[in-house]
């Protein structure tokens, strides 16, 4: 988690976030969530705290507060609101994907998923028998006309102002209507109890990370809403070694490549490469665009399309936290 090149407020938020994660010691700074305006007067004294990323930082003791109970409510509220003035968009360059599956691993790690749960899933595709096969990463498309949020009976899944479709697993009743409604198979259900320790289970639920996962509720790709809040690229985008992913803001008309960090005009990238979205006839208006698998210069090596049997009782190599 790098904080370079960010203004003071953002790094403070970042810091807050890290400390909140660190809150195993039950102490964290949460007053900083609110704007800088209503900070209490500083006393001049400083207390040293270790952040989750291992940095030692100093903070005024007056700003240290116990994690409040409303924390969950605050996270839910800001998670529902989203980031004003953005409309996130992803571009996936199919000509680049070599099936490294680093995106899948990073995603499963961050969101604490089982090996068969894929917020992002790299599929092996072949359009026709006479054309070359290719690999196709498939996250949630964060549709602008999402069939899934419409059918939710309790508003547990919703679309935010920045275009992200999220799920609140503290609200979800587990009816799975959204799974039935999603034509892209983007949604998964927690059929079993996640293998958490009591401590992991009792963490404050972050709706933008969907962690801790909860049995009997839905989980899905979140466009890494927690990372976007910190001004960082999504987990999958950052993890890709092959330059497959571009991620950015449609309103700025700019997308950044997760590997090369090159930034380009979104509209140009789409136009030059004949970018498209899947199944436009469904009218769902996906916000994940694809660049066709052209000029591929590496071999296609098919791998097993199915995993070995599911092992519900063993959690995989688990979380980053």
């Amino acid at each position, binding site marked *: 988690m790098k904080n370079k090149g960010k203004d003071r407020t953002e790094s403070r938020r970042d810091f807050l976030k890290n400390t909140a994660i660190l809150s195993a010691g039950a102490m964290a700074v949460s007053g900083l969530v609110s704007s800088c305006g209503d900070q209490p007067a500083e006393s001049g004294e400083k207390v040293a705290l270790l952040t989750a990323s291992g940095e030692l930082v100093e903070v005024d003791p007056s700003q240290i507060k116990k994690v409040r109970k409303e924390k969950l409510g605050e996270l839910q509220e800001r998670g529902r609101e989203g980031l004003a003035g953005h409309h996130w968009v992803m571009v996936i360059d199919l000509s680049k994907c070599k099936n490294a599956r680093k995106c899948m691993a990073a995603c499963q790690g961050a969101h604490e998923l089982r090996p068969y749960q894929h917020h992002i899933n790299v599929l092996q595709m072949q359009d026709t028998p006479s054309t070359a096969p290719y690999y196709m990463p498939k996250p949630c498309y964060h549709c602008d006309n999402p069939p899934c949020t419409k059918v939710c009976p309790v508003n547990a899944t919703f679309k935010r102002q920045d275009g992200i479709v999220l799920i609140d697993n503290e609200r979800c009743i587990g009816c799975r209507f959204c799974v039935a409604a999603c034509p892209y*198979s983007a949604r998964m259900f927690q059929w079993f109890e996640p293998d958490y320790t009591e401590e992991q289970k009792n963490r404050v639920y972050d709706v933008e990370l969907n962690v801790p996962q909860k049995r009997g509720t839905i989980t899905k790709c979140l466009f890494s809403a927690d990372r976007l809040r910190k001004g960082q690229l999504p987990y999958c985008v950052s993890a890709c070694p092959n330059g497959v992913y571009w991620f950015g803001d449609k309103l700025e008309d700019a997308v950044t490549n997760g590997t090369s960090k090159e930034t380009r005009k979104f509209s140009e990238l789409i136009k030059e490469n004949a970018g498209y979205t899947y199944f436009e006839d469904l009218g769902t208006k996906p916000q994940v665009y694809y660049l066709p698998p052209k000029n591929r210069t590496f071999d296609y090596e098919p791998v097993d399309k199915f995993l070995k049997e599911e092992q519900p009782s063993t959690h995989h190599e688990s979380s980053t936290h």
Partner: protein
Amino acid sequence: MSSAPLHSDLSDSTSYEKIREDLIRPLHKNTFGNQVWIRFLIILILLGAFAYGHQLIKGLGVTAMRDYSAWGLYISNFVFWVAVSLIGSLISSILKLLNQNWSTPITRISELIAVGAITMAAASIVIDMGRPDRVLNIPLHGRLQSPIIWDFFIVNTYLVISLILLYLPLIPDIAILRDRMTNAPKWQKKIYELLSIGWQGTQSQWKLLKRAILVMIILILPVAFSIHTVTSWLFAVTPRAGWHSTIFGPYFVSGAFVAGASAVVIAMYVFRKRQNLQAYLTDKHFNKMNLLLILTMLLYAYFNINEYLVAGYTWQRLDGKHLQELFLGHEAPLFWLTQILGLVLPIILLLFRPMRKPLPSMIIAIFVLIGAWIKRFLIVIPVQFNPQFPIQNVPEHFTHYIPTYTEIVVTLATLATAILIITLLVRIFPVVPIWEVAHEKGFHKIFKAEK
């Protein structure tokens, strides 16, 4: 105690007293068979409760449902129960409004089935929920856009109206029981006393009752059509090949009448046998009821042809894949068995009069009812294995669905509960309405005299 005449209609010389005693008689005896039957049902229900407890503790993972079959047996059961419950409205409401008076002796059977079935429909939904502890989120955070909210309200409305429609015509009968069943156990007499709500059979009471019944049989019509139409929309509003169909509403409603009518035929046979009601549930009633069943099956076959032929003719990408699976693939044996044994063959057989006699028609109705249940399964499950993108990077068994023991036991328990509800109700209430049958025979005056 004289036994009722076999296979003959009530003769004109039958007295009101005879009708009354014939219909009350079964309530006097708690036969050994009945006690065993009730215990058997309770054991099934306890097994189901145990299985459901297991599911509550372990999560829905104990079912065979997975991410590519997120809805399974429980949702099929839900659709099936809603379907069966619709018969209450068809017989009590539509036939009555059409002055089809032959249906009088079977109105209560159909209402009992409606109440038992709609209760289990509601239960099936809760059983299917991943977080049943949050069921209150539905009224608390309900969003009007969601068909589940529509279903939630309409199922509850239908349950209430069905109960009222069962109860209202019972009032005069309960009053008769209150006056006649003097040797019944204390609790039973108490129930009659309470539920007869002071019925004396005065002219104004009759007027009120008849008006109330008329209001309810009209009210239940739009609710009944809504409940199954909305249930079909749970599927039709999703952009899935095989579900996203404009005829799903009427397709489901017509199918519902098939399921319910066959359930009524089976129940008629059982009650006729067990309660010696041969004089009240006659061959004539079976004949008419089976003609009605043919009519509903023809209607359902018509919608089936529409549903499959139109999609099959164009054979669009996913529609084609779905139909390939149904017609020729994995699901083909089940699909064709259901369509032939549960629909085509019954229609043909029932066209012959001897087949509409009680025993043969009951056997045919069992096939129709099982077919109706499997058909729901075939509507709900295969579509989900046919998404836009291939199913990959999950265990191979995610690509098919075979219900687990837990699901099967819970399902059997819901069936047992529905039957138990009906069994217990007919233990204390007459299964054939006394006053309505008597009215039909022209004994109005007796009721007015009875104070």
